[in-house]
């Protein structure tokens, strides 16, 4: 924990004062107050908010198994394709994994973790598992953008040299000069670059060399608040990559300065379409708030996909209180999003529009639940960090990370991390196949709402799911109403008798 002795002392004193005050205090949040006392600044925190009810545990997939009971059963031939693009873009990204690495930028993650992700995805690609990676807001690394021969063709020789020089310095800083350059300087997986309000990128290759572009309007952890990288994490090299002063906190504007409303979004997407010659698929990412309205706007705006990020969605740094109180959960926002898409396509017939879901999704079962509820793809962030050894202490906003992922004091074992990621992806993928296979489906996309049941009233109501005992929410209400009438009439009768 990065708290100094002073802070902890202060916390102890305030705790004692709180305990003797006979008044109600939320002691879980005491540290937030202590930090404000300590430096009078807005306290930040990392990863996702704490949601007391994120609905996933109260939804069950009936009749599915994540591990087949009989050893000889194999569901390897289940189709897990996810296709991005094609609604307006001429290029189409076709992957065989319906989940991918959501935006985690260099800066919020340290270089070894970014390299581990890059190498792991390359390794998976060689084995035929093609997974999408999102760069995050803070720009891409040289080998991600200029990873192949042809991708260097549209930069000048001088620029190319400076890129290589920058790569050298990056590797040197983390003592990674011994890394295999040929392996590093190749990218075999599809890359999505994030077009965020900070605009931290320096040349057009960022848009041109990417396989798809994601316009980030907001993210689940800090909806309505711009991206944020605290000062201590903006090292010289991070600052150089983003084109900002070093060791100064990078506060992105809370909105795109040129996207104020729907017509601006249309204009922006058309601009990006022209830049990329209508080739790259374009995704628009919003944090879950007024989801139906937001998705409706995205549908009208020439985008290929919409991406929603739930309340629990993680981040490198967000104002603590803001992260904890703004936003709605992933599952209840998934339902209106899908409804918006269906309402829109009731007018036109084509359905190339994809819905991507982020936030509180970590394992295969949750991916399957999302897909069954109407998502096409799922973005995972924290899950990949966990497979690299994240310990969930949520200090990602500092430069200290016990696992060496977001801070630089611990060294990350890249090789082990690569194995972890590869195993995590493969394991999750085969679990997904098992879930679909054990339900007798040919494709993971065939999962439907009927495969799910809810274990409590609220989930059943919000998601339109059957309850465990085969009762629909409507029947439940009907029973409730009947009971209420009975007890009411009984009460009235009793009162009459007493008179």
């Amino acid at each position: 924990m990065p708290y100094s002795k002073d802070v902890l002392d202060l916390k102890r004193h305030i705790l004692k004062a709180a305990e003797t005050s006979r008044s109600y205090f939320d002691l879980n949040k005491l540290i937030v107050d202590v930090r404000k006392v300590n430096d009078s600044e807005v306290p930040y925190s990392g990863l996702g908010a704490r949601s007391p009810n994120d609905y996933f545990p109260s939804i069950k997939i009936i009749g599915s198994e994540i591990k087949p009971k009989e050893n000889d059963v194999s569901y390897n031939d289940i189709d897990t394709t996810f296709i991005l693009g094609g609604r307006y873009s001429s290029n189409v990204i076709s992957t065989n994994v319906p989940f991918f690495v959501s935006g985690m930028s260099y800066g919020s993650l340290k270089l070894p973790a970014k390299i581990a992700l890059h190498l792991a995805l390359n390794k998976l690609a060689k084995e035929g598992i093609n997974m999408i990676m999102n760069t995050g807001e803070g720009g891409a690394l040289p080998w991600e953008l200029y990873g192949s021969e042809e991708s260097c063709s549209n930069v000048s020789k001088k620029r190319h040299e400076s890129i290589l020089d920058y790569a050298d310095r990056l590797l040197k800083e983390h003592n990674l000069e011994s890394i295999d350059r040929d392996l590093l300087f190749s990218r075999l997986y599809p890359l999505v670059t994030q077009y965020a309000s900070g605009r931290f990128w320096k040349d057009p290759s960022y848009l041109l060399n990417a396989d798809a572009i994601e316009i980030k309007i907001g993210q689940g952890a800090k909806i309505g608040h711009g991206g944020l990288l605290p000062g201590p994490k903006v090292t010289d090299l991070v600052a150089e990559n983003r084109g900002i002063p070093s060791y100064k906190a990078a506060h992105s504007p809370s909105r795109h300065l040129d996207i104020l409303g729907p017509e601006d979004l249309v204009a922006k997407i058309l601009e990006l379409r022209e830049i990329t010659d209508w080739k790259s698929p374009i995704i628009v990412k919003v944090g879950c708030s007024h989801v139906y309205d937001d998705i409706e706007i995205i549908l009208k705006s020439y985008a290929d996909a919409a991406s929603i990020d739930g309340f629990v969605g993680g981040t490198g740094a967000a104002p603590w209180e803001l992260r904890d109180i703004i936003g709605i959960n992933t599952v209840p926002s998934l339902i209106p999003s899908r409804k918006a898409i269906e309402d829109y396509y009731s007018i036109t017939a084509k359905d190339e529009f994809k819905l991507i879901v982020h936030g509180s999704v970590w394992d295969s079962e949750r991916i399957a639940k999302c897909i069954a509820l109407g998502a096409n793809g799922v973005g995972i962030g924290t899950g990949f960090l966990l497979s690299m050894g994240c310990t969930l202490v949520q200090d990602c906003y500092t430069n200290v990370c016990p696992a060496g992922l977001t801070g630089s004091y611990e060294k990350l074992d890249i090789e082990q991390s690569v194995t972890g990621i590869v195993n995590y992806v493969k394991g999750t993928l085969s679990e997904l196949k098992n879930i679909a296979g054990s339900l007798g489906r040919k494709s993971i996309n065939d999962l439907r709402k009927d495969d799910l049941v809810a274990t409590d009233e609220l989930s059943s109501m919000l998601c339109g799911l059957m309850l465990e005992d085969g009762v629909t929410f409507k029947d439940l209400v009907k029973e409730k109403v009947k009971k209420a009438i009975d007890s009411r009439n009984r009460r009235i009768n009793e009162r009459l008798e007493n008179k």
Partner: protein
Amino acid sequence: MNDSDKFMIRRAVLELAKTGIPRSASMDDNIRKTRDINLRAINLWDYVTLIGAQLSRPAYDPYRETINLDISIGIGKSRKIVLNIPLIIYGSIDMDSYSLDSLHLALNRLAEQGQVVGIILEGEINTKKDKRKYPLFKKISSISENHPGDLLGECNEFCADGLVFEYKDDSSVDIIRDLREQFDGPILVDVSNVFPSSFNSILDLKTDGILVDTEKITKSSRYNGKHAIKVICDARNALNSYYKSKDESSDNAILVIAGDVNSTGKIAKVAALGADIIGYSTSILIANSYIYSEKPYDVISIAESVYRHMIGTKEELRGIPAALGYSDFHNISPSDLRTSSIDASLQGNIPLEGIDKTYLDTIGELIDEFLSNKELNMTYSEVRDVLKSIGGE
């Protein structure tokens, strides 16, 4: 994420990352098994969130644009007091003279920098007006046998800028009327003893605000088992219905909510439910913490702590309306709230997330549907009573 969830998430992913072969049990099954134990520790406030501004409504930028937090107390002819942070320091916590001194120093320093915060104090006040730059509200209770004139004399002695009068019973009305005639500053009435009745008679006396202590009320028999959310919701509704019958609504009495509100997030939620000013006790807590420190009588450094904490809180408070798309803190409204709990929806009339309707509205619509499909046969009064009983009344 709470600790047990963290443990299960981490275990689930690590198992996969180590072996790469499917696990035997999923994470959600494990969480479901332990959830009932975990839920006990969670407050209903945690189920209530605000919805932020995205595409359909652009956000403001707290670092680059002005976000207004000011609020003025005082209606009609009474002297106006403007607070730059919608907080008033108030809590049922005992303070000694050192705590008071440090609070005094901190509030003065804040006021010098244009960050005026109010304070409500009971008992003797040892700061004289000439040295005070922040508004002070003197709390007086009708329980004391004093004549209103005496009460006022006491206030004048300490030069209080405003009064907080604790309402006890119908006899308090006369005292308030007398106070109103003689005192030109704002008068807030603490209605916690009689809540939710007597609102109209108090407002008829041209009082400048109502103070509601949720902690006291939720402990009373009338609100037994109910949450502070319900209290605030009822208080706002009572105020609104009073002004509904009046023609001019531009100059309304304010609602001060005190009680279990002590974090920035809750301040925003309470403001959304309808509070104008929030009674905030964390500053007192920090002022009191000096007792346990190594340098217990260093009033200046403890004042510095209170000051820094308030500045931090103010910055946080600026961030929240901006993220919701408002340039004014007081524009946050009940329509910005969503909840993931049926209980919270019923108590605070808060829409459920995803469907954007309250639980009761959804049930009402379903009953209408049953009636029009002739699945059920109910009279109008039956429907009303059923909705009431489902609503927990």
